[in-house]
């Protein structure tokens, strides 16, 4: 046992040593390239803690695989950088996922009124870029309930039409090809802007990360920057992400967002209570998405979108606890999963209450 431990420590030290070396080489190289040999000493003096932190961050490993000491250092670096940048005391938490928990979400589409408060509550909570690029993790779809009218004229006019050779094939009634409602995404609108809501001829379906049990994004990620944690939530190590956007392509729910530019987050609107895998400010060129508010739910509180919903259409809880609201909904209501046919097994359930 002790020997193993010793070996581990020495390897870590070696890695740390190599990192230090690489860091120093790169720092000197970079400054030499930019400023030329005459001003090297001046540049080194002027190199702020911020720049140092950035370089150290660049060379840090995957957070999940780090030792506790490395994690502490990484978090210290981030807290220092965010506190300086946003001019307020920022905490980056590393609370682990609660034990014996599988997070699930249920949303009542018969109650949702499409007011988009969840969208903006999420932005307030999770430090997304406010504009240019505007990043929102929830997309509210407005879907027509459909035309429930059948036409008597079409009863005899099915396909295939009777040909000159007689009536061949299986006749289906002409009404078979008329939309009769239901949830389809073909005619969904996401940029709707009405005076008041709800419009009674439409369903409203908010879509965010569905926290799949078999997440295609995790399969697609070439560097394993995105992964499923023990509570079933798919998370991203923003520092390990290389920004290749393979996960965005793989996600059937369009739930992932990419930071095309430097995030535009005003200091006064920044939320200083952050989590490493949750709402800490992101950088340009990384993916982000709904984390079920990791910084809140890992500490026992409900997600921000749930608290903002004025009609109580959103329910969150532990799928392993039969007393939880989500489990009671699964037991008593008519529940469906979005795009079930993809076999992603989402833990985000839509129901009719």
């Amino acid at each position, binding site marked *: 046992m002790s020997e193993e431990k010793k070996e581990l420590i020495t390897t870590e030290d070696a890695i740390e040593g190599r990192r230090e070396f690489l860091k120093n080489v790169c720092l000197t190289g970079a400054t030499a390239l930019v400023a030329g040999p005459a001003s090297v000493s001046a540049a080194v003096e002027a190199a702020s803690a911020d720049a140092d932190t950035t370089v150290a961050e660049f060379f840090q490993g995957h957070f999940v695989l780090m030792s506790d000491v490395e994690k502490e250092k990484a978090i210290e670096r981030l807290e220092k950088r965010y506190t300086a940048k946003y001019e307020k*005391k920022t905490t980056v938490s590393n609370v682990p996922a609660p034990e014996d928990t599988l997070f699930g979400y249920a949303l009542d589409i018969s109650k949702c009124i499409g007011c988009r408060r969840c969208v903006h509550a999420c932005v307030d909570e999770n430090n997304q870029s406010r504009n240019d690029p505007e990043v929102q993790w929830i997309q509210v779809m407005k879907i027509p309930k459909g035309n429930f009218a059948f036409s008597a004229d079409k009863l005899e006019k099915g396909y295939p039409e009777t040909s000159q050779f007689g009536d061949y094939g299986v006749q289906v009634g002409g009404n078979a090809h008329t939309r009769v409602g239901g949830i389809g995404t073909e005619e969904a609108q996401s940029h709707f802007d009405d005076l008041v809501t709800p419009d009674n001829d439409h369903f409203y379906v908010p879509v965010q990360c569905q926290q799949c049990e078999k997440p295609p994004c995790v399969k697609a990620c070439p560097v394993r920057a995105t992964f499923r944690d023990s509570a079933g939530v798919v998370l991203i190590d923003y520092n390990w992400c290389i920004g290749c956007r393979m996960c965005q392509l793989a996600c059937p729910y369009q739930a992932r967002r990419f930071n095309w530019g430097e995030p535009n987050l005003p200091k006064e609107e920044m939320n200083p209570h952050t989590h490493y895998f949750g709402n800490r400010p992101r950088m340009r060129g990384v993916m982000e998405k709904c984390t079920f508010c990791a910084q809140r739910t890992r500490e026992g*509180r409900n997600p921000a979108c749930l608290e903002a919903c*004025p009609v109580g259409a959103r329910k969150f809880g532990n799928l392993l606890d039969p007393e939880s609201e989500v489990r009671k909904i699964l037991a008593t209501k008519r529940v469906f999963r979005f795009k079930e046919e993809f076999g992603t097994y989402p833990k985000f359930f839509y129901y009719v209450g």
Partner: protein
Amino acid sequence: MHSLITPTKFAVLALCGLLAISLGLYKSAESAEQMSAKTQNEPLVTDCYESREGYTTVTRVEGAVPQYGYPNIKCSQKTGAVLWYGDPYEGTVPMGEMPEITDATRGNYANAVVKPREPRLMYFNMGPDGCKTCHDGKTVPAPKNKKPRELAMHQDIVENSMQLMHGRGSLWCLDCHSATDRNKLENRQGVQIGFNQPQRLCGTCHGELYIDWRAGIHGKRTGDWAANGKKRWWVCTECHNPHTVQVNRFNPIKQEAPPALPRGMKNADHERMPHGEH
């Protein structure tokens, strides 16, 4: 290396660099100007409503959660709705006694808190004695029976008292409001119920919804997600207006802003195109 770069090339490079720097400076200055103008023109909305406009107003207090420097709430600048809670239990009191029901709802209300409704009611707060300031039996005489009649007052709540549609015309004011004590509600057994616990009255008719509400399936609950955690239960009248509920289960409200259009797109008409028969 230096000998390879001719003076002309160097000059061009330097010019390009200068141009890039000046462009960047210009852009940042412009955006800063826009931001400051935006904040100057729009005063911060500090009074906003939770679910029912006019009946659930909360005022923003800075630094209400000193741990993170949070305000108690954040309001929407566009619609004046509460978007975000710093403290989900602000202004709540323990829910207190719930009537025992012998079904399997397994309602867990040991850690339940509610926001009292009485401070939010306009007429209730017009005098020191609540509604009794006028309805004391002398200024406004007590009604003799529960028969519907034309009301001279309170048209802002019920426009035409003869056409009160709750229960599709089978109910009238005094079926829920106590005839003798206007500070109370009253159920069909004559038990007086406070305005803070409307669920005890509504539940006597809407049993199915009441059972769902007790189980946590119907209605809003904020706070902890754990089944036995502390939660704020939202009571019936925080979301529904009992006087107009037949018209709208939930009164229509304004929407928050739609997401920005993709760069270069002028409008979202492509979404509204008819797709024809499928």
